[in-house]
């Protein structure tokens, strides 16, 4: 399973690199009265899926268009599907083999654009693109360079040790670290609620994000966690979630944001019986020149479809394979 992550990271990298842009007229959802729990909170319970082919950033080939017409949307979706699917034979045998992995275990929902026909998940800034990066401090530049060196050794098949692998490859964090972004599989999230709590269980990796909504303070700043420390409150029918206290390891947060100055606000609003709008705003004056916001639709999963345990580390044999392979290659004279 681990290996698939590589493909997934490749996809993310491609999306980020592609030069994408933004848009969007954040669609004002029709007024919908979300059901309430017996204790009076808006009811978000169920299994939800955030897969989509709509890129985080608006791609260059759609110009400045934030929302497409039906006809344009069909074309957009077709083109994205062609790029994303592994079930194609063009490009010759080598390209086909390099696509690796079969399509059948990937989430087919990732081949569809969002129902609102947006050209990017980012809704702010209006160009649909992540704001320009801030020049890093010398200290951060060194940390980023060290991480990049490790990634390069790994990509070359010669990792020096396990720290050359990324946190997702090492099964430390995957889509369980916010913001939740769609990926090639395991895009499910189950929400459980009880009085005073909203709990999100991301399928990958099996953690439970238990969010107190009772007004209690955050943990002391000295206590830092991979997934941070989360508190929530209700604003009307929207669950607003703030997360702090992230660990300081380089490369855990999106685009290598700096844990000490990074803030993330997530908003969950049930906009239909079968849909939640998931919106997140990221801010970090040490990483981005201004805050930015993305809106990702969460679609309810058929009740017959269950969440399954995603045990990442337990069968992570690839770690040994990567490392023993590298040692063997060195023995054979490769560097």
């Amino acid at each position, binding site marked *: 399973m681990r290996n698939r992550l590589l493909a997934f990271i490749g996809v993310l990298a491609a999306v980020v690199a592609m030069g994408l842009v933004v848009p969007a007229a954040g669609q004002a959802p029709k007024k919908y009265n979300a059901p309430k729990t017996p204790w009076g909170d808006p009811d978000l*319970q169920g299994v939800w899926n955030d897969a989509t082919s709509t890129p985080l950033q608006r791609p260059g080939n759609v110009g400045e268009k934030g929302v497409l017409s039906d006809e344009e949307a069909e074309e957009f979706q077709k083109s994205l599907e062609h790029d994303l699917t592994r079930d194609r034979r063009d490009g010759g045998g080598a390209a086909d083999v390099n696509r690796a992995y079969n399509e059948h275990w990937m989430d087919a929902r990732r081949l569809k654009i969002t129902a609102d026909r947006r050209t990017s998940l980012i809704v702010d800034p209006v160009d649909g693109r992540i704001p320009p990066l801030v020049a890093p401090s010398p200290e951060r530049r060194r940390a980023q360079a060290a991480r990049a060196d490790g990634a390069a050794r790994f990509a070359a098949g010669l990792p020096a040790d396990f720290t050359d692998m990324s946190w997702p490859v090492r099964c430390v964090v995957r889509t369980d670290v916010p913001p939740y972004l769609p990926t090639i599989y395991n895009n499910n999230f189950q929400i459980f*609620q009880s009085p005073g709590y909203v709990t999100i269980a991301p399928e990958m990796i099996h953690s439970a994000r238990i969010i107190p909504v009772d007004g209690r303070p955050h943990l002391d700043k000295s206590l830092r966690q991979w997934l941070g420390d989360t508190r929530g409150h209700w604003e009307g029918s929207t669950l607003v979630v703030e997360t702090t206290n992230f660990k300081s390891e380089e490369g855990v947060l999106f685009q290598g944001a700096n844990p000490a100055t990074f803030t993330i606000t997530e908003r969950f609003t049930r906009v239909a019986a079968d849909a939640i709008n998931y919106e997140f705003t990221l801010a970090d004056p040490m990483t981005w020149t201004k805050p930015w916001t993305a809106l990702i639709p969460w679609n309810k999963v058929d009740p017959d479809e269950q969440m399954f345990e995603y045990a990442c*580390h337990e069968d992570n044999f690839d770690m040994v394979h990567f490392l023993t392979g590298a040692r063997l290659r060195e023995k054979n004279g490769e560097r």
Partner: protein
Amino acid sequence: MPGVPRATYMPFPFQIVQGTGPSILMAYEFTSATRIIRMDWKQAAPTDSWMGWSRGRWEGDTLVVDVTGQREETWFDRAGDFHSDALHVVERYTPLSPYHMMYEATIEDPKVFTRPWKISFPLYRRMEKNVQLLEFKCVPFTEELLFGKFRKQAAR
């Protein structure tokens, strides 16, 4: 992940998230493991997993959880004893007061034990103000042990 019933008596807390949906979440601090107890699932476990497949039902005030489909690799108990893939655990969570529950587990594993047997102990609610589970991502603690020996050695 520890498997069941071992998860219940690790020296770390766990939280039960029980709402109005058709499932209850058990969130364990140890290795940040979770399992979903499905209250409306009648069929057999669809696949094996580390925490098993939990089917729940109510008997009066008692939550009865039938657990099958556990992978045989998990330790059966804290001493490191083993079980097989035929392990069948029936758990009973019975509230005794707002602060206590009695836990009972009937253990059946025809490939390992000659007959079914039971364990039982009380569970005490954590009463600290603002108590919360903390994160226990165990992977970073295992990596040196598992992968350290494959590190590139400095050229001699």
